[in-house]
């Protein structure tokens, strides 16, 4: 099989930079990370300098995703050698146990980290992930709520909790989590848009009107957000069609829906033009 560098005609520096970009964007393209990372480690380890440790970590996690325990084990050993007694490496060892579905052993691993360092958020979150993997949603939700009482600024945790609630169809509580995220990230169009989707799903006239407002807000923050544009159209249309609204509200929403339709059509025209270029 041809190497990555041969197939894509890239240098080792470009491969290293790609890995960094994927790290920064938190991409879960594990197969690609394994392909690029494995080659980098095998062929160019000496050139990577101190970057190699974070690359070992990144590749190890990707390897777990791809059931490449051989590669994961190699990376783990290198990290253990370099950072003996490190909590961060211990957590990676725990993740490997999770990947092997040895949940009790993994849990013990995280408990030992927490014994030494009760504030270790990573270990606590891994324990919650185990509950999720085992399908124990109610417990995961409970633990995550407890965690957030202590670590109220952990956005990743708030977002995870909102998703857990959505999967349980508890849209009210999901909305609450997204409200927290919107408060601390008022310029994030994605949170706005997701909040609008949750409100829409909850249903009822009041929630529909709220959803329309937040779709509009998301659009204001990012006029390229197609979900927000479609959402604006859908919510305005439903409000306009509702027998409970008066003529003024109906007229306004018909206008919003028409505007959205226009924008949607324009967006498709532009995309087709770009496609043909």
């Amino acid at each position: 099989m041809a190497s990555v560098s041969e197939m894509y005609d890239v240098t080792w520096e470009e491969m290293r930079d790609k890995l960094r970009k994927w790290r920064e964007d938190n991409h879960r393209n594990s197969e690609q990370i394994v392909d690029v990372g494995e080659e980098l480690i095998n062929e160019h380890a000496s050139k990577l300098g101190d970057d190699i440790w974070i690359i070992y970590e990144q590749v190890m996690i990707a390897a777990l995703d791809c059931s490449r325990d051989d590669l994961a084990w190699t990376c783990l050993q290198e990290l253990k050698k370099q950072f003996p007694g490190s909590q961060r490496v211990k957590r990676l060892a725990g993740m490997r146990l999770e990947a092997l579905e040895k949940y009790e052993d993994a849990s013990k691993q995280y408990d030992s980290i927490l014994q030494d360092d009760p504030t270790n958020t990573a270990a606590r979150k891994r324990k919650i992930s185990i509950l999720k993997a085992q399908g124990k949603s109610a417990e995961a939700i409970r633990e995550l709520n407890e965690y957030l009482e202590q670590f109220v600024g952990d956005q990743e945790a708030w977002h995870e909790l909102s998703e857990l609630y959505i999967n349980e169809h508890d849209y009210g509580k999901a909305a609450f989590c997204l409200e927290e995220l919107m408060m601390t990230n008022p310029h994030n169009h994605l949170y706005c848009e997701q909040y609008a989707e949750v409100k829409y799903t909850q249903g009822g006239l009041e929630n529909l009107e709220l959803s329309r407002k937040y779709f509009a807000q998301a659009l204001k923050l990012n006029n390229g957000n197609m979900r927000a544009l479609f959402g604006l159209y859908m919510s305005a249309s439903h409000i306009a069609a509702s027998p409970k609204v008066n003529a003024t509200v109906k007229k306004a929403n018909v206008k919003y829906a028409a505007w959205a339709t226009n924008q949607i059509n324009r967006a498709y025209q532009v995309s087709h033009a770009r496609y043909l270029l």
Partner: protein
Amino acid sequence: MRMSVKLTTQAYCKMLLHAAKYPHCAVNGLLVAEKQKEKKKDSHSTPILCVDCIPLFHGTLALAPMLEVALTLIDTWCKENKYVIAGYYQANERTKDFRPNQVAEKVGARIAENFSEAAMIMVDSTRFTMGCYEPILAIYDHHENKWKCRDCNADCFEDWCEAQKITSALLEGRSYESLIDFDNHLDDLRNDWTNPEINKSVLHLC
């Protein structure tokens, strides 16, 4: 006698490619069949042939607005192409969880409103292999407001050998990397959820 549902290679292929592209997420999508012109007298014995599959979402499946958008747009596309939405598929986030949940039942029921013989299909990821040696679907029929599971074997395919061979080949070739679902389309409108390139690959391998 219930009409049985059969899948073409293209439909089966794209379903599995969708699940393979997002192994850590739940995925769902629609199945379409050609619109029948008239009801033949012996229509009870003619199976519904699902000729294509439209991958919809990955990740959070339980939100309404984008699903409604997708159903509306795809319905329009169906009318233009003389198709009808005939089924729904879903693969759950957790591998070991292959029972239909509330989302599957709701969407399935909605499709059944417009197409009484609608099928709901759950993908069993525990048996998902690159070799595709056996069909990994559980097919559910809507009967008196309940979903009943039917056995899925080679008979549920227009040509199981072809489906097995081609799906396996496309998985090996990592075609799933270029599979487009409706979520991808919403991220960038140029992304085509009809997946013409993959359709070509399937035809090519036939």
